[in-house]
């Protein structure tokens, strides 16, 4: 086994200090260009976006060729040679996928697009089967069973350590939130039933129990979206802090190198 040692990697990193500085400077400029969207859509922002999309597309293409196509299709055929092409295992694992890939290329032209339908059907069908099967066996059934078991106040959560009344209250809140959210989406309530008030006292409409449950579900949904939005804002602020730190480090590095 011949791999680079840590010293060699470090030496290579030192050689690229100047290159890293230039790259950091360009990255800082592109960051400022992207932030210029603050004053509205402008050519600098568009240039930064075009560069991002173009570089990303080129990089993805290169990765796909070097990490997927060459080791998966080209090298096995070259290693097997013409004689090895008749190998049933090679046919199943390489030739058939290669034919499907070639058929998929026909999708680029509308006149020949129907020939690529076989590959597309295989992709979509297998993908859908995997996702649906995984969702049922990995999420729906296990989490439903676990939710029923959590009603036991004597049970102790292995990871969080919740037990006793705390766990019971937590489970009740989860149960109410789940049912109320389902009620809110009207899976079982007709429109006419929920509009009927439970009573009218002194001209005040007292909503029925179903409408109350619906309101609770609405509240749970609002809280959930609020938490998710707060998390997104927090994540964005962390990214902004990282970018500002990066720009400051770059400016400091440039100033130090000049000085």
């Amino acid at each position, binding site marked *: 086994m011949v791999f*680079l040692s840590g010293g060699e990697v470090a030496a290579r990193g030192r050689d690229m200090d100047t290159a890293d500085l230039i790259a950091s400077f360009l990255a800082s400029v592109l960051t400022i260009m992207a932030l210029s969207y603050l004053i509205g859509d402008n050519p600098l922002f568009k240039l930064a976006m075009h560069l991002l999309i173009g570089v990303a597309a080129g990089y993805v293409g290169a990765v796909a060729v070097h990490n997927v196509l060459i080791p998966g299709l080209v090298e096995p055929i070259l290693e097997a040679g013409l004689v090895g092409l008749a190998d049933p295992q090679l046919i199943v694992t390489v030739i058939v996928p290669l034919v499907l890939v070639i058929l998929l290329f026909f999708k680029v032209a509308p006149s020949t697009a129907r020939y690529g339908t076989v590959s597309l059907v295989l992709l979509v069908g297998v993908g859908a089967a995997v996702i649906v099967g995984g969702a049922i066996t990995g999420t729906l059934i296990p989490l439903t*069973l676990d939710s029923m078991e959590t009603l036991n106040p004597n049970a102790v959560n292995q990871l969080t350590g919740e037990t006793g009344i705390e766990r019971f209250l937590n489970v009740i809140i989860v149960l109410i939130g789940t049912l109320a959210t389902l009620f809110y989406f009207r899976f079982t309530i007709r429109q006419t039933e929920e509009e009927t008030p439970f009573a009218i006292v002194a001209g005040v409409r007292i909503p029925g129990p179903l409408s109350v449950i619906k309101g609770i579900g609405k509240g749970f949904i609002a809280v959930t979206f609020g938490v998710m939005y707060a998390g997104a804002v927090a994540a964005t*602020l962390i990214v902004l802090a990282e970018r500002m730190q990066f720009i400051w480090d770059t400016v400091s590095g440039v100033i130090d190198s000049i000085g």
Partner: protein
Amino acid sequence: MCGKPNHGDAEECAHCGARLKPLQVSGASEDSGDWLNRIRKEAEEPPTSADSEGTGSEAESPGFSEGSDDFEIDFDELRAAEGDVGSYSKADNGEKDVPDWLQRIREKQAEEPEGLPISDEPSPEDALRAAATQAQVADEPNDLSSFDEPLDALRAAAAEHPAAEKEPEDSTDLSREEEFVPEQELEPAAESPDWLQEMGELDADGEGELDADGEGALPHVPALIGGADESADQELSDLGLPDWLGEIEPLEDEPTSPASDASTDLAPATLPNWLEAMRPVDTFRSVVEIEPEDDQAVESVGPLAGLSGVLLAEPVVAMPRTSSVGSMQLDVSERQYAQAELLHRLVDEEEQEAPGVPKRRTRLAVFRWAIAAFVLVAVSLPIITGAPSFALPGLEPRELGALFRLVERLPAEQPVLVVFDYEPGYAGELEAVSGAFLDQMMARGLLMASMSTRPTGSALALIAVDPFVDSHGYENGQGIVHLGYLSGGPTAVQLFAVNPREAVLKGFALPEEAQQAGLSAWDSPVLDNVEALSDFGMVAVITADSESARVWAEQARPNMGDTPLVVVLSAGAEPLVRPYFESDNPKVGGILSGLPAAAAYELRNGRPGLAQERWDAFGAAMLAAEIVLLVGVGYGLLIWWRGRSPG
């Protein structure tokens, strides 16, 4: 009428006898004198042998003559036929040198003075014809002499048949003709002299009599006379027509009698295939419907006046009708009509002048710029000046302890698989959040393998572990190896869970020596004992969205055995992944989310990292965001309160 070719100068069709040029009454009486003299001369001359033998048609039809110029003579014959219709026979022609009709002509000529006085007043027939052809007749004087003799003959016939005057007036052609003639043209007739009035009565009586006589009711028209066709053939030969035209043989059953017989013997017209193919079908509709023969009207004007079974000139030429050219009958459905109306309305709206839109005042995004500047300043101040400074979190999330303990208990001989499933845009957050986690594992010297289901994830893995490689003495390929990009999404994750070595074939960023030797990442000592996913000591998924975490929990977890699954999340994705962690049989064995948890993790590690480095900036930014939110809520309440206040 028949469509056959004729000579350019021919006034009448040589085949059917139809008039090709409008009838122009010549004022020169000399012309009529010539042909009349010629006829007289022929009548006085004894018949030659050729004439006596003649063609069958000529002999059997005494009233038929060769030339089309004999039109007037036919009238005379008609007059003679009024006395003894059908008295002519072939034997009679042979016995008499001079036919009766000619004898009658001579008798009348003897009774009348030579040369009829040319009257300036138009005859009734001329008046009717002039109504039809005003333009032509207006330029030339009327040739009344050509009709004098027929009129006289009609007078004589009236005298011979006085009983006909008592017959009721039938709907004759002349009576119909009056319906088409404008009143101003009929007025002169009211002022006509006595002879003309007498002539009008005579005509009415004569018509009724002619109708009663059957065949004799039809006037002599060359178009319905077989002899005219023969004479026309001779004229065609004289015109020097091409040979192919001369080869056309006449029909065997040529009509020798008027229209009733001719219509039954006519061969149906056929069109060649190419012409039939070009003929429009259901596009152009004929204006004039061909009526049954019984219902056919009688021509009232023109040279064919009085004839039935002919194409009516007046309704076709002069009557207002829908143009047959381009009269396409469009089958318009309601939808097409609605679309046409819509298009029409759109066009109308386009023609209308749109009201001027007042220019909106360009409003500067003052609020947006102010908020952005406020947040940027809040974030930059701790980075540049180091102030304000915020205290590190004293409390840590409950799940952090479980994760920390899990990492601490991992076996050193089993590698840890770290999946970097996030895009470059989230690198700033997830590098800081996962830094302490990676630091703990690499501080323990655990073998590590990185992978990603996103093409850019492999490069992000290099960046994420790079700060700890040197600090903890890791070597590429020795302590850590990068498997690279796993293409295929959820399907590939399942395939990788079942057989990792077939899912990832090569590796990413392998040492050059290993690449030159043709080695893959699986040849690295890090993955020597790994044949399945359960051979890893732990699988950690660093992701920014809950979907990727759910895919690994659903697709890979069933094949992981006792190997724990840990998720390092962005703060926004945590609520959707937490149920997998808090259930009694957790799919996720550990969860790390958010910068506060990462800062607390670093505190546990005892080594500051990116989380603590950005903690002040993050704190200032969060404070600024909270202030902005509070100001916004206050501004909204103020607007709401001002809207409710009566003032």
